[in-house]
């Protein structure tokens, strides 16, 4: 009794937890065609496997219960070389049952796989995601080169539009995975992979890197914003704009430091002299929902912490702790906050 109670106590919060958080980063999210197909197949497998498990355990418990009562074929009775002929037929039946069950599952898996592959052929939008230690470089591809957009760590997708995401890596192997949308696919240097997603629901979803990629693998996440098509186009057009000119003196001081100081060696800011290519693009940094590849939510306090000492927040990250004077720090953060 106490066992059942404690089991309930253990499972209930888990179930609640699953429901509460499935919007954000969960296989139960069901926010795209791919994840829904996954869930259907998953529950089919769970049902078949559950039946198999119950059968095995029931057979074992029945055997234990029977042995208490019946006279058995054991060494003490001298009949230990005898076997119930019925057991032979049961063995054959059991084999057939496993075979049929597994064949059914294999076929179900095969058809789900094929339907996913078919969905992957009619893409309307193409995005290239490049995995880097430990952030995501994102480029929206457009036929018109002036519309090509480069951003980082935040992926916007229009709802209902099949999007092909081309996956590549410039250093080690990473894996692109947004649990609420679809399964994962690796980003492998020297290889071109891709994944197609058809989001079905508006929302914000998180995608952690799913292949161990070194020291800060735990702090390499992607925020995915699924929005209506009109909003998406508006977002795209806004992101194409160069960074706004700083207006306050403090932000202007920050602008000068960022575009002429060490920041610009790695970061690019559209419409300014800062044109580094090896770190995330900062043109619309403050419009993003998270900072440092999903390490923290975006905010003034987080920006202060991150700019002042990234190494204490994400040890080993490629961004160095420069040791800014307090005045410089205020200026830099004030400027970065204007990058909406």
């Amino acid at each position, binding site marked *: 009794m106490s066992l059942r109670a404690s089991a309930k106590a253990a499972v209930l919060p*888990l179930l609640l937890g699953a429901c509460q958080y499935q919007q954000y980063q969960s296989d139960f999210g069901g926010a795209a065609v791919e994840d829904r197909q*996954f869930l259907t197949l998953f529950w089919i497998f769970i049902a078949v496997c559950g039946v198999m498990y119950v059968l095995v355990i029931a*057979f074992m418990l029945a055997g234990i219960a029977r042995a208490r009562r019946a006279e*058995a074929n054991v060494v003490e009775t001298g009949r230990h070389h005898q076997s119930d002929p019925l057991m032979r037929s049961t063995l054959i039946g059991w084999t057939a049952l496993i075979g049929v069950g597994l064949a059914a599952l294999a076929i179900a898996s095969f058809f*789900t*796989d094929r339907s996913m592959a078919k969905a992957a052929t009619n893409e309307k939008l193409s995005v290239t995601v490049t995995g880097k230690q430990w952030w995501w470089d994102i480029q929206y591809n457009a036929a018109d080169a002036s519309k090509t957009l480069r951003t980082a760590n935040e992926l916007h997708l229009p709802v209902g539009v099949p999007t092909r995401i081309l996956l590549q890596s410039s250093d080690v192997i990473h894996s692109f995975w947004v649990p609420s949308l679809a399964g994962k696919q690796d980003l492998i240097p020297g290889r071109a992979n891709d994944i197609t997603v058809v989001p079905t629901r508006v929302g914000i979803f998180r995608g952690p890197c799913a292949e161990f990629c070194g020291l800060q693998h735990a702090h390499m996440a992607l925020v995915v914003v699924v929005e209506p098509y009109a909003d998406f186009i508006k977002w795209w057009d806004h992101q194409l704009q160069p960074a706004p000119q700083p207006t306050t003196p403090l932000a202007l001081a920050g602008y000068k430091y960022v575009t002429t100081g060490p920041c610009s060696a790695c970061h690019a800011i559209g419409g300014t002299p800062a044109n580094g290519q090896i770190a995330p693009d900062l043109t619309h940094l403050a419009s993003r929902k998270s900072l440092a590849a*999903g390490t923290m939510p975006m905010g003034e306090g987080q920006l202060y912490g991150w700019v002042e000492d990234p190494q204490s927040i994400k040890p080993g990250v490629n961004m160095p702790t420069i040791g800014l004077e307090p005045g410089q720090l205020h200026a830099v953060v004030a400027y970065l906050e204007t990058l909406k």
Partner: protein
Amino acid sequence: MTDIRTDSFEAMPARERERVRVEEENRRLAQERKKIARDGPKLKGAKLAARLDLAWRRPPGIVGWLATVDHKEIGRRYILTALGFLVLGGIMALFMRLQLARPDNSMIGAERYNQLFSMHGSTMMFLFAVPVMEGVAVYIIPLMLGTRSTAFPRLNAFSYYMYLFGGLMLWIAFVLNMAPDVGWFEYTPLSGPQYSPGKHTDIWAQMVTYTEVAALAAAVVLVCTILKARAPGMTLARMPLFAWAMLVEGIMIIFAMPAVALVTTVLLIPDRLVGTQFFNAGEGGDALLFQHMFWFFGHPEVYIIFLPATGFVSVIVETFCRRPVFAHSVVVLALISTGILSFGLWVHHMFATGLPRVGYSFFTAASISVSIPTGLQIFCWLATMWEGKPRFQVPMLYVVGFIFTFVIGGLTGVILAAVPLDLQLHDTYFVVAHLHYVLIGGAVFPLLGIFTYWFPKITGRMMNERLGRVSFWLVFFGFHATFLPMHWSGMLGMPRRVYTYPAGLGLEVPNLISTVGAFVLAFGVVLFVVNGLVSLYRGAIAGPNPWGAASLEWATSSPPPVYNFEHIPVVESDTPLWDTDGELPVVSGLRVDQKEMLLTTVVAATPDVREPVPQPSLWPFISACAVGLVFAASIFSAWAVPFGLIPCGIALIAWFWPKEMKRHPEPIIS
């Protein structure tokens, strides 16, 4: 004297002369035969035991200790060393669980955490799981087969020292903060020269090489022992299921291990040390080559760990249900087909790498079909329980725990075999849960059971039953509390190998439960160890056959004498001790003044050859030192290989230096 004889000899007719020569020769052989002591009708009891003891005992002292070729001594060391590594790997796991108990925990930093999980995986896979199975087999198999020694006993000793040196190197590196930090799988290019500076990765790669050499040597020893050293009458059909499991396992090791030794030593180390570009996509290499070769070993590895455990289960089920395992031949076929199928599954570790979809379908089907033979084995054990009368002592409890747990792991394995499901679940805590259900539920539970079961054979004393029960329940519930919630955290999107996770994703509760469970599990293991230590000195005296078992290891005293059996038994059924009243029939005619074992034919096990057994020798130890030195030095310089070959060559030449062959008169074995 010679003159007269020669004269008369010369004077005889040719045929007569030949007859006399043969007679003379026979007389001389008969004289010599009398000088040789053999077991048999005339020599038995205490006198025989004393003679055998004199012939088989190794020299005392540290030199004798290092030189021993006794399979029991080597097996004991193997088991104890592996259990030591189990404890170390378990402590690593507890630290990881502490770090993951809370979100955004800063107790252990990224660098140390990455070392912890790399060490945990490497230790458990390479230094615990495979060696402990081979160690148990090295101890038990010759006893179970009714023989006095393993085949190639010196190779056996060499194998242990290689294993020990590999383990020591890894752990000394850990203490020196040079431990591997990119996982137990070390995918390129992360493990390549550019992204893994320092010597962390090289240490891992060479540790793998040591343990692979050790595992290969032990596998050769076991396969040859099982095929050639069985007691007369123990045909392949009558061979115990544990011996079958070890035979299949040994053959699998021989085919699987070279792949990983090749990929680490021959491809990865040169990439890091001398600038080859096998895995560098920029120079025409291929990063995925590493994964293919690693998993070509890595997947069979799982079955290399699991198959001996199924052997343990068969042994326990047979003894505690008081009848032979149902459908012996089905279980044997299941073992063999599992062994074969396991070589066709490796790509299911790589479904997310973007390989062609037709290939995926093949590997899904192959992965799913491997559960058919395993399902058959489970049926056979349950049918044995159904027909027999199970007695629930501690080893049998572990079997029941095994069924409850392993079947879940097997079924989540079926789920992971389906590509659309695997793409979501791959590299998440769902997989962590699955692999621990399979490896702890499927291999460690039977191991703890068999440890309790064979403890009296090895030490002469029983383990405490009550303590054993308590630790079983702690281990069982601790295990499920640790790993069941991991299915949830995986479904909630928690990837593997992260040193921390953010709050607010619903991961707090399952992770906290896992951490608490891990400590319960650890407490159960501590109790198990305490039970073993206490029972070693205070346990009830066991006697030769405390469980009333049927196989030959119980036909000799506990612990067995250094020569195992006074007489080599003859087997007439598949449960010999149950089918003979009192004394087993025996073979006589083996020498007792020198170490000698009886080899039999491979299938029918009829007596074949009397084989002299090598004396204790220091050369296996010295060879292992020399080879170990080359491996360790080649981490730092490629020149270690050509120069290191010199001491290796000297040691091996000394080891294999041909001894003068003496012509001995052949005895008649009746």
